[in-house]
C-alpha cells in the first residue's frame, strides 16, 4: 500500500481503474494453488462462491466446492501435465436451489491454477422452458383428437408430418413430404382451391379462417374449419404458417338439419313460403342480369274445402302430401316446389320459359288427377287448377310475375277447374 501511495497521481488513478475493472467484471475469477489455497478472487467470484460455503470462507477452493464438486481435488491432482485445461464449463447444480454454475479451470504452471465461475441459471432455465414448450407442442400435435395442427412454409409446403395429420385424414409421412396444403382440401365447386390466396390473407392479416370440404387420404371428404396463423420471424415478416384444421362434419350435418327445418314446410316437405320468396328473388335477379327466364306455376287444389268438410282435416292433409309428392317426383333438380299457403303450391321453374313450361304443367295436372289419396275411405280423387306466367321484359320484380300467375289461376278456376291457363 505504501508503494501505491508513493506512485505518481496518474498511476494511482490507473491502478484504481484497474481495480474497479476487476471489481465489476461479471464473471468470477479465482487464482489458486494446487493445495486449494486461494490467493486472488474478484468480487463476482465471492458473490457466486460465498453462498456455497457454510463457513462463509473463501480461503480454499476445495472447501468451497466440497458439496457441489467433491472430486475437484482428485481431478486436479490427476492432471499431470504442467499446463492445460482441466475442465471446461463444467455444469454444477447448487443443491437446494435452482442455481447452476459453470466451472472452468486452467493450469498455468505446476502450482498455479485459474478458475472461471459463471452463473448460468437463467440460460439453463431458458433452455428448460424451450424444451418444455417443444415437448408440450409435440404432446399437443400428437395427441389431440379432432384437430390437425401442422406448419407450412411460405409456399404452403408441409414442414413436418405429425400424428394429428394421420388421425384427422389418415395421412402418412410419405404422403405429406414436399406436399402443399392443396392436398388436404377439396377444390371448391367454383374452381381450384385458392390455397395461396388463403395464405396471402393470413400473411396480410396475421390470421384467417375458412370452412370447406377437406380431403382424407382415402379420397373421402369431411367438412372442416381451418384457422391459418402467420408465424413471424424476429423482424415481424411471415416465415411460414401454422394451420389448425377441425372436423366439423357433425356440426355441418346438424346445421344442414337446422337449415332444412327453417326452410321446409313440415307437412309436405316442400319449401316454405319464406324460402320460396328468396328463390323467386334469386330467379328474378338472373332474369334481370343475364336474361335467364323463369316460369311460375300457381297450383291450387280444387274443391279443397269440400274434401276437408266431407272427410276431415286428415284427409285434407293427405291430399296435400300426395299432391306435393307427385309434383316433387316430376321435378328437375333445379325446380323448386313451395307451399305458398293453405292448399296452394308454387312451382318455380328456373331457366324455363312458358313454352317449355306448358307441357310440364299439363303433365303435372294429368298425373295429379290420376293419383289417388289413400288417406280416406273411399279414396279421394283430387284435381288441380294451374295458373302460369313467365318473366317478362317489363317486370320490375318477381311480384309482377306472381300477379299474372295468380290471374291465370283465377281464369282456370273460372273456366271450370282441372286445367292449366297461361297469362
Amino acid at each position, binding site marked *: 500500500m505504501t508503494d501505491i501511495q508513493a506512485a505518481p497521481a496518474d498511476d494511482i488513478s490507473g491502478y484504481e481503474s484497474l*481495480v474497479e475493472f*476487476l*471489481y*465489476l467484471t461479471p464473471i468470477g475469477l479465482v487464482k489458486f494453488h494446487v493445495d486449494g489455497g486461494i490467493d486472488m478472487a474478484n468480487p463476482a467470484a465471492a458473490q457466486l462462491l460465498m453462498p456455497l460455503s457454510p463457513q*462463509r470462507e473463501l*480461503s480454499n477452493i476445495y472447501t468451497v466446492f466440497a458439496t457441489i464438486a467433491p472430486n475437484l481435488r482428485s481431478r486436479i491432482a490427476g492432471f499431470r501435465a504442467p499446463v492445460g485445461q482441466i475442465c471446461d464449463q463444467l455444469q454444477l447444480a447448487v443443491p437446494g436451489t435452482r442455481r447452476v454454475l459453470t466451472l472452468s479451470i486452467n493450469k498455468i504452471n505446476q502450482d498455479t491454477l485459474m478458475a472461471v465461475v459463471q452463473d448460468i441459471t437463467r440460460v439453463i432455465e431458458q433452455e428448460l422452458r424451450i424444451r418444455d414448450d417443444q415437448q408440450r407442442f409435440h404432446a399437443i400435435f400428437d395427441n389431440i383428437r379432432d384437430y390437425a395442427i401442422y406448419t407450412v412454409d411460405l409456399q404452403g409446403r408441409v414442414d413436418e408430418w405429425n400424428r394429428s395429420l394421420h388421425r384427422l385424414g389418415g395421412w402418412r409421412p410419405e404422403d405429406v413430404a414436399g406436399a402443399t396444403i392443396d392436398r388436404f382440401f377439396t377444390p371448391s365447386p367454383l374452381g381450384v382451391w385458392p390455397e395461396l390466396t388463403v395464405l396471402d390473407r393470413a400473411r396480410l392479416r396475421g390470421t384467417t379462417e375458412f370452412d370447406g370440404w377437406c380431403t382424407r387420404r382415402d379420397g373421402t371428404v369431411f367438412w372442416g374449419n381451418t384457422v391459418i396463423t402467420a408465424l413471424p420471424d424476429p423482424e415481424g415478416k411471415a416465415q411460414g404458417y401454422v394451420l389448425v384444421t377441425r372436423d366439423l362434419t357433425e356440426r355441418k350435418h346438424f346445421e344442414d338439419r337446422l337449415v332444412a327445418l327453417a326452410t321446409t314446410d313440415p307437412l309436405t316437405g316442400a319449401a316454405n313460403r319464406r324460402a320460396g320468396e328468396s328463390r323467386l328473388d334469386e330467379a328474378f335477379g338472373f332474369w334481370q342480369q343475364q336474361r335467364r327466364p323463369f316460369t311460375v306455376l300457381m297450383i291450387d287444389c280444387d274443391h279443397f274445402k269440400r274434401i276437408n268438410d266431407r272427410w276431415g282435416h286428415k284427409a285434407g292433409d293427405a291430399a296435400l302430401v300426395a299432391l306435393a309428392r307427385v309434383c316433387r317426383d316430376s321435378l328437375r333438380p333445379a325446380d323448386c316446389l313451395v307451399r305458398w299457403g293453405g292448399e296452394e303450391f308454387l312451382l318455380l321453374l328456373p331457366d324455363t320459359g312458358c313454352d317449355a313450361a306448358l307441357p310440364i304443367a299439363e303433365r303435372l295436372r294429368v298425373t295429379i288427377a290420376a293419383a289417388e289419396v289413400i288417406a280416406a275411405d273411399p279414396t279421394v280423387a283430387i284435381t288441380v287448377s294451374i295458373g302460369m306466367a313467365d318473366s317478362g321484359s317489363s317486370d320490375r320484380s318477381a311480384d309482377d310475375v306472381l300477379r299474372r300467375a295468380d290471374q291465370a289461376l283465377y281464369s282456370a278456376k273460372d273456366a271450370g277447374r282441372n286445367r292449366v291457363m297461361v297469362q
Partner: protein
Amino acid sequence: MIEALAEHAEVVGARSLFSSPTLFDWLEAATPQEFDALAFGVVGMDSAGIVRRYNLAEGRLSGLTPERVIGRHFFTSVAPCTNNFIVAHRFEAENEIDDVIDYVFTFRIAPLKVRLRLLKRPGAQLMYIAVERRG
C-alpha cells in the same frame, strides 16, 4: 444518553464501537471528520442502495476513493461480491437489520476475511454496512 456520548467520544477509532449497540446513532450524528477517523470501513447507502457516505478506512480497504464510489449502486456497481442472498437480499427483504456476519471481501482481488455489521432501521434515510478485518 450523556454517558453514551461520552463513551463514543472515547471509542472513536477503537474496535469496540464496531459492535456497540449504539453504532447506528453514532454514525447518524458523526461529523465527516469523525466518520473518516474511524478505523473500520463504513458505507452508507440510501434506500435504493445508492452510496451516499464512504469513509476513508473503507477506501483504504477497497482501493477506491469516495469520489469514485459515491452516487453508485453499492451492490451492483461497487461491491458485487455482496450481491447475493447473504447481504444484498437482506437489505431488500428486511425492514430492520442489526446483525454481524462473517464474510470474505475481495478487496484488491484477494480474499480478505471480514466481519460485516449490517444496519437498517425503518424510516432512516441511510442504511449502513460496517466492515472490519477478522482472523
